[in-house]
């Protein structure tokens, strides 16, 4: 009898938990609401509450490019170098595609950065405080690991976007950082 009771109680607890999880998933789909933001920031520590709006409402139709250059002297700068983010896939990518991780990380970071630029502009009139944001630090960390010409250099990065294979639009600038000592 005791076992039956504990089974029923456990069944009830798990059912309520799964029902709440499902309800939170539905609420999270309204991503621009404060409730959805609260769920994402405060509740969803392990990224367990999905947002299922794949490639909608705005499909990603540009490729992001991350470039950097060094300040050698006050008037001399190195050429822009590009970090290799958008590598073409191989035939076996339908089954084995490890490259997608790097691309997805940088794509997520850049999208996160791009999406918070208007907020920073609105709040402070400029994007100076953006350099304290997590995506900015990740991008800066990534470019600062690339080969340097001298031990102490000042490095600047640029985020740009292109329209992929169609090449209908010229490359567009998204963000130009200040020079950082690295």
């Amino acid at each position, binding site marked *: 009898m005791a*076992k039956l009771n504990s*089974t029923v109680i*456990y*069944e009830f607890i*798990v*059912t309520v*938990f*799964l029902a709440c*999880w*499902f309800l939170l*998933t*539905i609420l999270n*789909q309204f991503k621009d609401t404060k409730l959805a933001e609260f769920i994402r920031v405060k509740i969803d*520590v*392990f*990224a*367990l509450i*999905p947002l*299922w*709006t794949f*490639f*909608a*409402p*705005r*499909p*990603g*139709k540009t*490729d*992001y490019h991350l470039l950097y250059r060094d300040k050698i002297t006050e008037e001399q700068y190195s050429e822009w170098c590009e970090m290799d983010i*958008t*590598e*073409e*896939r191989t035939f076996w990518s*339908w*089954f*084995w*595609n*490890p*490259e*997608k*991780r*790097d*691309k*997805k*990380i*940088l*794509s*997520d*970071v850049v999208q*996160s950065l791009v999406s918070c630029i208007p907020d920073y502009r609105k709040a402070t009139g400029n994007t100076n405080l953006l350099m304290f944001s997590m*995506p900015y*630090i*990740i991008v800066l*960390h*990534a470019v600062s*690991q690339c080969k340097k010409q001298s031990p102490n250099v000042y490095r600047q990065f640029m985020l740009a976007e292109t*329209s*992929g*294979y*169609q090449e209908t639009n010229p490359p567009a600038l998204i963000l130009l950082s200040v020079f950082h000592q690295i």
Partner: protein
Amino acid sequence: MIVLTNITQLVLMILSVGLFVSTLEYIKKIQIFAPNGLLSWNVMQLNWGQRNQKTLLKPFFKLFSQSGLSTLFVIRCLLLVGLVFFPLQSVFGWVLISLLAVSLLTSSLITRYGSDGSDQMSMLIVITLVLCHLPGLASPRLADIGLWFIGLQACLSYSVAGIAKLASAEWRASTAIRDVFSTKTYGSKKATLFLQKYPAANGFLCWNVMIMETLFPLCLFLPWPYAMIFLIWGFTFHFFTALIMGLNSFFWAFMATYPALYFINHQMPWHLF
């Protein structure tokens, strides 16, 4: 060796294939977690600096070095191999999947950037199976509830994706797939050339995806032969997104939910006609 007559076991086996490939992909790209990598813990820990959880999660933080995560991923592969030999209903099988859940939750703390919907679906399935098969407490009815939860999440995912696309002017204008396929990130040169050569295909593909995704939950209510149309469509859709867009992990994560859809469809007390 287990037998795949049990629907829950079938869900787990399909998912395991995808998780095994995905984990090996992480091992191949382990340098992203190195001190100079994109997801270096030196940087990623700043994400947790302002959070109260820092003290609670501190024991896990030692794991987030390149070597710590390599070990975690190798252990995950071994757990997945072990699940081939021990059914979920056995105590040892449950211990294995619980450890798998712990490993997925732990790594999710550092892979916030770079993870996608397939990772979330995988975690969702694994945690549901752990909760619904606790030895000594879980009942057969709870196992059924778990399958309902997995199936309903799959239907919600397709439906939300479809409705969000219907609300998008770019999808309704039939330009979305052409634009996505033309990127180097998610597209391919061959697909771009094909869509340039046959512009009518843009409209067909966009509306096909929007309508089928939105109506996908009907697969629960239609008589099984008609419901199969949605599942065959889903299989084809995920196969081609893997082939053209490189979204290989979505294929396994979403195919794993299909046995649950079969189960719900056959449990439905009534069908539409």
